[in-house]
């Protein structure tokens, strides 16, 4: 037989091939409190008033923390800082739904959730100062910060798998951005979680941007939530500026995860600040857009709810703000007092037992520093890139 070219024309009649496309899936964005402050009474979580007040407090703390940290950075007293401004409801609503036994896999913007989980503010500041010691995330079930975007998703899957094997009643909770969903690590980690029935919740704060890239260019999918279908796991899309909605959604997700159904939650929100302190967002987005989202401010919306339900009067906003400002100042003072370890810090904690060559490198370096104390000076004054 000849290797004849495939030259026949495509079927000219309609033969009934009907591709599925994303339009075929209906994805609701779950809400409790609408942007105008009105709300769905059936959906208000059955928690006590104190908890409802705490939610406000934590959101305010997140806001104050972000403001102060950004200022501190401008004065050169922190390294690069990533703010959660605009995402307070997503950060706090999700963090509030977790148990202390759960492990959080942070990615950078979720200060409030980490503090709530037991991290000290001093340590968080020290972390952003690039102090090795603070990376311990001491005293809290918090994994090392995932600076390489998406790389932590398989870690969370593995951790959840461990919890499952150990028969524990806890989950692995990964924070991630919309950008992270495009990484291979996200895909493999999510898919494996689906196969393992791992008790994990992957919480995507879709803040509409990955640095300058708008979500429409991050993926052609209309939502992050629908990506759950690729893994046969549950997907939830929630208004990320509605703290009660986020709280409910993550509570539900956590419950599902404990039953062996990993969940991908998409919280639709907006990064109102710059990507980090080294970014200039005016290069890639309009002021109108930012203004538009400012109208959906999560704190204001929640305040409207609290007012509507007669709880606002119990909240002394000024007092909370002052308290938090003070907490921040105290944390800065404590951070300033932190005494860095010597150069051994560089050589430690990579191995349980330092191998001979590395030990030798340390010793040689020590000797050199003694011989050439001008090295300290050089190191301190060298141009910083």
């Amino acid at each position, binding site marked *: 037989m000849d290797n004849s070219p495939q030259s026949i024309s495509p079927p000219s009649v309609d033969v009934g091939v009907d591709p599925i496309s994303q339009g075929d899936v209906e994805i609701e964005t779950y809400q409790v409190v609408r942007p105008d402050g009105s709300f769905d009474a059936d959906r208000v979580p059955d928690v006590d008033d104190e908890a409802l007040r705490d939610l406000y407090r934590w959101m305010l703390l997140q806001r104050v923390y972000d403001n102060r940290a950004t200022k501190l950075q401008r004065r050169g007293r922190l390294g690069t800082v990533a703010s959660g401004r605009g995402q307070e409801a997503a950060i706090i609503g999700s963090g509030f739904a977790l148990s202390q036994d759960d492990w959080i896999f942070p990615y950078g913007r979720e200060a409030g959730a980490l503090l709530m989980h037991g991290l000290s503010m001093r340590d968080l500041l020290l972390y952003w100062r690039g102090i090795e010691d603070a990376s311990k995330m001491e005293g809290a079930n918090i994994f090392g910060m995932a600076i390489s975007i998406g790389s932590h998703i398989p870690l969370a899957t593995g951790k959840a798998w461990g919890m499952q094997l150990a028969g524990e009643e806890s989950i692995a909770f990964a924070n991630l951005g919309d950008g992270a969903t495009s990484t291979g690590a996200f895909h*493999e980690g999510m898919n494996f979680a689906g196969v393992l029935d791992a008790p994990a919740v992957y919480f995507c704060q879709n803040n509409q941007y990955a640095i300058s890239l708008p979500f429409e260019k991050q993926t052609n999918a209309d939502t992050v939530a629908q990506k759950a279908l690729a893994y046969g796991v549950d997907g939830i899309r929630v208004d990320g500026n509605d703290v009660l909605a986020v709280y409910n959604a993550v509570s539900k997700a956590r419950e599902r995860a404990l039953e062996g159904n990993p969940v991908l939650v998409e919280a639709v929100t907006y990064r109102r600040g710059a990507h980090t302190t080294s970014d200039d967002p005016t290069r890639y987005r309009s002021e109108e857009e930012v203004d538009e989202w400012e109208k959906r401010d999560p704190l204001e919306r929640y305040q409207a709810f609290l007012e509507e339900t007669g709880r606002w009067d119990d909240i002394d906003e000024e007092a909370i703000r002052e308290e938090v400002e003070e907490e921040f100042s105290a944390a800065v003072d404590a951070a300033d007092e932190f005494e860095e370890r010597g150069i051994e810090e560089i050589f430690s904690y*990579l191995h349980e037992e330092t191998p001979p060559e590395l030990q030798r490198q340390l010793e040689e370096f020590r000797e050199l520093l003694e011989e050439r104390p001008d090295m300290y000076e050089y190191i301190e004054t060298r141009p910083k890139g």
Partner: protein
Amino acid sequence: MNATIIQAVNDALHEEMGNDEQTVVFGQDVAESGGVFRATEGLKEEFGGERVLDTPLSEIAIVGSAVGLATHGFRPIAEIQFSGFLPPAFDQLVTNASRIRWRTRGELTAPMVVRTPYGAGVRALEHHSESLESIYGHVPGLKVAIPSTPHDAKGMLISAIRDPDPVLFMEPKHVYRSYREDIDEGTYTEPLGEAAVRQEGEDLTVISWGAMMHQTLEAVENLADKGVDAEVIDLRTISPLDKETIVESVKKTGRCVVVHEAAKTGGFGAEIAATINDEALMYLEAPIERVAGFDVPVPLLSMEDYYIPPPPRIEEAIKDTVAY
């Protein structure tokens, strides 16, 4: 027990899974089918489906989830089916496995093993023949072990599983079944980070590891008749490197040939040469010769045997070095 390397690996896994309930074996085709090389045969039957699992075709997830699992008190023993398929997971090795202890200042650790068959010579397809040990050896925080004998395969694998930090365990698949030896029954360990002197000698030091050890020993034997008295070192661990054994030997012999299968440029032979230069330069009576793969990808199966340094190539290098 008389065993091949692959049997020794299998035996080690049986032993240590029996010794330590926290061990979990997973990877592609390791459970139901017992692994494409049968390294994990019988494990699922003995230890059950919770501890012996087949994974999706996801190298990133295999290595990444091993890290997560290890931080939760387990001892993951992951298999990457061929080392040519480890590069997709390279980031998880560099970014997470090697650094979790470092990143968390010892709060979390990753005692895990990634086993993978490496090297050419089994007439397989593209990407089934790589030797990238020098790349992994350059990643601080990652141990890289490469046994060459059944005894070492078993003892070093058990050590790797018990190691408090991540170990990449590269198995010389070309000699998985070519050589047998009597190995001890039961549990024993061979240390990581210690080279083995396979033969003492005065004329020169020949250093190799993994599958190339056998080619190397053959070459040395061929030259013994011709009066060359070689000291032969089996490196066994690329990282951490046992400098002492190397340096002591070269100080004695004054000459050295390094044999490896990986491409020459940037191969681990360079680090060995540099190390000897650092610590024994003035003892050298001849340049250190590197007998290595060429600076090309491993050829497809019809020509791969030309790529792997055969004993005659090694012999010539030894002769040149001794005669220098």
